[in-house]
């Protein structure tokens, strides 16, 4: 037994050494933003009857689907607000961190042949997996503490030590659970790309399950790890059992992963790689064909995912409509946007958010150009009769098209599901047209990625941060009453919310032009610079 884990600690040390920058950045930024946002709350929600009324309107299905169930709405103090508005979002970010870090130290290292050398040393068969788990458990605990302590020290209304510790514990437990699940997915596939697709699909599914469950079926929410942790009712009732339950549940994927890890061959998956074609297909004759071939699986999975996501949100519209018709309170305080129902407002929000999610596969495709370069494979192409412009164009074309297709699919899914549950569904054609207005915004991000690839190839990840910021300002802009200029920093802040406002063809045109300019910058930089690792 101990032989399986021989030298685990030494390998854990290696992981710390390798991630000496990355892990602290994750931890510090999550803790920092949590504290900053908490500190902003008192000015946003001064105590008084107005706050209580606002709290009541927050119990609407549209918001619940996005933020989770609101606990403590009858006494909506700073703690309750923080847990209601921020906990789920932060937990998702912690999950993303864990997925990325676990894969980096397991399947990706294995795929790159680094584990082979390590395993030739007196290192146990499970030492690598165990060291990754060990480091991430520690990281999550530190993260939990780093979030909890400042929150408690702020001493805001309702944010006591017990609640703050639970807040941190919920984040740590969620992180550990997703680390465990990812370790399991890393055993199944031969490539880290596929493993990461599984892990993120699992995260997305957990989110959707919770969204639907929170509105219509409590058990459905509790099955989802994200739904379960919210049942801790942080700062309101402070239940610890969901944390314990999630931690216990995390044991299962770890044990299964260990079991698979001891029996399988190094660098092999459990799902066998199928033999492929003997000859390249007609498609695979050009860089464009290569990109399509490389991205085939990713694009297909995302297409299905976007459709399901749209449909999941669409299915909520029935509840939103009923709520809007029956809640007197709601009618009293939110007649603000005349002529538009809560349903319309929810739709406007969803279209923007879906377009940001559709940006993810599009960005993955264009960033693959850089990934291929890092893996030393671009030289094979450039050594052939392919110009840099040609190569970049191939990736851009696919990314640009994917953006439009993804957005369209999610809206079709949304419409189909909504039409099934709403008495008076919104017209498909107009909704689709409204949704496609956002597509040039995705193109701007693609252009930004291309420009980064051209001029700052070591920093292409910045585009993810920018997308994250866009998502944050849209999601929380009005809840946190963020100043208008913060929204204007992202492309999404410049597009009116459809169908609430009119869009001019000019705005759309301008977005497309901006995207094109960024792409041209990308081409210029890319054809001038060295190909590097």
């Amino acid at each position, binding site marked *: 037994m101990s*032989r399986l884990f*021989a*030298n685990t600690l*030494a*390998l854990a040390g*290696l992981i710390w*050494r*390798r991630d000496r920058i990355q892990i602290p950045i994750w931890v510090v930024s999550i803790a920092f933003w949590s504290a900053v946002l908490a500190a902003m709350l008192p000015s946003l929600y001064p105590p008084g009857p107005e706050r209580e009324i606002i709290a009541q309107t927050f119990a609407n299905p549209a918001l619940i689907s996005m933020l989770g169930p609101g606990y403590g709405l009858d006494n909506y103090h700073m703690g309750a607000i923080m847990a209601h508005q921020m906990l789920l979002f932060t937990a998702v970010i912690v999950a993303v961190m864990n997925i990325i870090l676990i894969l980096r130290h397991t399947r990706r290292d294995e795929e*790159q*042949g*680094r584990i*082979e*050398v*390590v*395993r*030739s*040393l*007196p*290192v*146990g*068969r499970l030492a690598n997996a165990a060291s990754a788990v060990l480091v991430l458990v520690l990281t999550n605990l530190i993260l939990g503490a780093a979030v909890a302590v400042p929150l408690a020290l702020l001493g805001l209304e309702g944010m006591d030590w017990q609640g703050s510790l639970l807040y941190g514990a919920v984040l740590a437990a969620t992180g550990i659970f997703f680390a465990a699940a990812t370790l399991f997915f890393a055993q199944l596939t031969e490539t880290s790309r596929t493993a990461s697709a599984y892990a993120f699909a699992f995260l997305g599914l957990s989110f959707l399950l919770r969204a639907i469950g929170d509105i219509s079926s409590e058990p459905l929410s509790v099955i989802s790890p994200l739904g379960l942790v919210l049942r801790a009712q942080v700062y309101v009732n402070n239940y610890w059992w969901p944390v314990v339950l999630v931690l216990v549940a995390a044991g299962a994927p770890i044990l299964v992963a260990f079991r698979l890890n001891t*029996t399988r*061959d*190094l*660098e*092999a998956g459990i799902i*066998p790689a199928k*033999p492929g074609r003997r000859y390249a297909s007609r498609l695979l004759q050009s860089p464009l064909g290569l990109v399509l071939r490389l991205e085939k699986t990713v694009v297909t999975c995302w297409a299905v995912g976007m459709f399901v996501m749209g449909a999941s949100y669409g299915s909520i519209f029935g509840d939103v409509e009923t709520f809007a018709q029956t809640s007197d309170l709601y009618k009293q305080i939110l007649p603000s946007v005349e002529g538009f129902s809560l349903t319309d407002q929810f739709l406007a929000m969803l279209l923007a958010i879906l377009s940001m999610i559709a940006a993810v596969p599009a960005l993955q495709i264009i960033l693959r150009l850089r990934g291929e370069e890092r893996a030393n494979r671009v030289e094979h192409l450039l050594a052939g009769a392919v110009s840099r412009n040609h190569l970049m164009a191939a990736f851009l074309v696919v990314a640009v098209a994917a953006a439009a297709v993804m957005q369209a699919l999610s809206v079709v899914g949304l419409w189909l599901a909504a039409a099934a549950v709403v008495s008076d569904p919104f017209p498909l054609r107009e909704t689709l047209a409204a949704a496609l207005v956002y597509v040039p915004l995705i193109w701007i991000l693609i252009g930004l990625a291309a420009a980064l690839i051209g001029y700052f190839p070591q920093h292409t990840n910045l585009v993810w941060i920018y997308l994250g910021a866009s998502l944050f300002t849209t999601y929380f802009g009005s809840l946190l009453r963020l100043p208008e200029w913060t929204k204007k920093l992202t492309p999404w802040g410049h597009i009116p919310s459809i169908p609430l406002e009119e869009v001019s063809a000019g705005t759309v045109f301008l977005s497309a032009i901006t995207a094109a300019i960024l792409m041209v910058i990308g081409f210029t930089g890319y054809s001038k610079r060295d190909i590097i*690792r």
Partner: protein
Amino acid sequence: MAILKVNDVTKKFGSVTALDGISLEVRQGEIYGFIGPNGAGKTTTIRILLGIIKANSGSAQIFGMDAWRDAVEIHKRIAYVPGEVSLWPNLTGGEVIDLFVKLRGGHNKPRRDELIERFDLDPTKKCGTYSKGNRQKVALIAAFAADADLYILDEPTSGLDPLMELVFQECMREAKAAGKSVLLSSHILSEVEKLCDRVSIIRRGRIIESGSLDELRHLTRTKVRVQTAKPIPNLNDIPGVHDVEEFPGGFTFQVDSPRLGEVIRYISSCEITALESTPPTLEELFIHHYQREG
């Protein structure tokens, strides 16, 4: 004494049979060459010996222990160098060497520094910036800095320049002099010829020949170039003689090595004035075996 013993090992990848019942034995203190065409199964065998993939049947033992079950125990006493060395881009060569040596449980700093000197490596550079040869040097230094009893080397020199190749051969001889054993898989046949005591030739997952170089040579043909005072009659008809070519005053031909004595006796009756016989090089031997079952 056998340090490493592979007995009738079979390995399938799905429907592909990569190893089809191979057996090998490396004795204490010898350098054992492992050669064969691309895709023959050398790396697969080595990975089974390292316990990172599992044989479907047969046994693989090192130091009398099972390669899969006792991997950790075994690895304390072996050093491995792969042909394609992947390292962590943001660690330096020096860090990686120390890590490997430490994981194996030894630390011999003077030896490490001496090797870095001999292999002419800059240990302060990040692995991401090393060339292929330099990455290989990192793995070689880490291997030789360890006080291992068995070295398993899979094309360890495929990226080294000729000067470094010499340093490598020197290190190998030192290891041998110190009583260590080596399993060396390589496509550089001159290297194998210079270093190895015994070799095995593997082809399509089977060992087709093994033994000392002399023994293997015996299985093939020797090249002979002879000049005689009198013409040699019916040279073509003598059993074991092939590829006869005439030149002014003599012949060149090949002869099956076991019949060499017989053939020389026959032509000596024609008054030999000059005789040259070249044993087959490993390369010829290799090609001979490779093509034989073509």
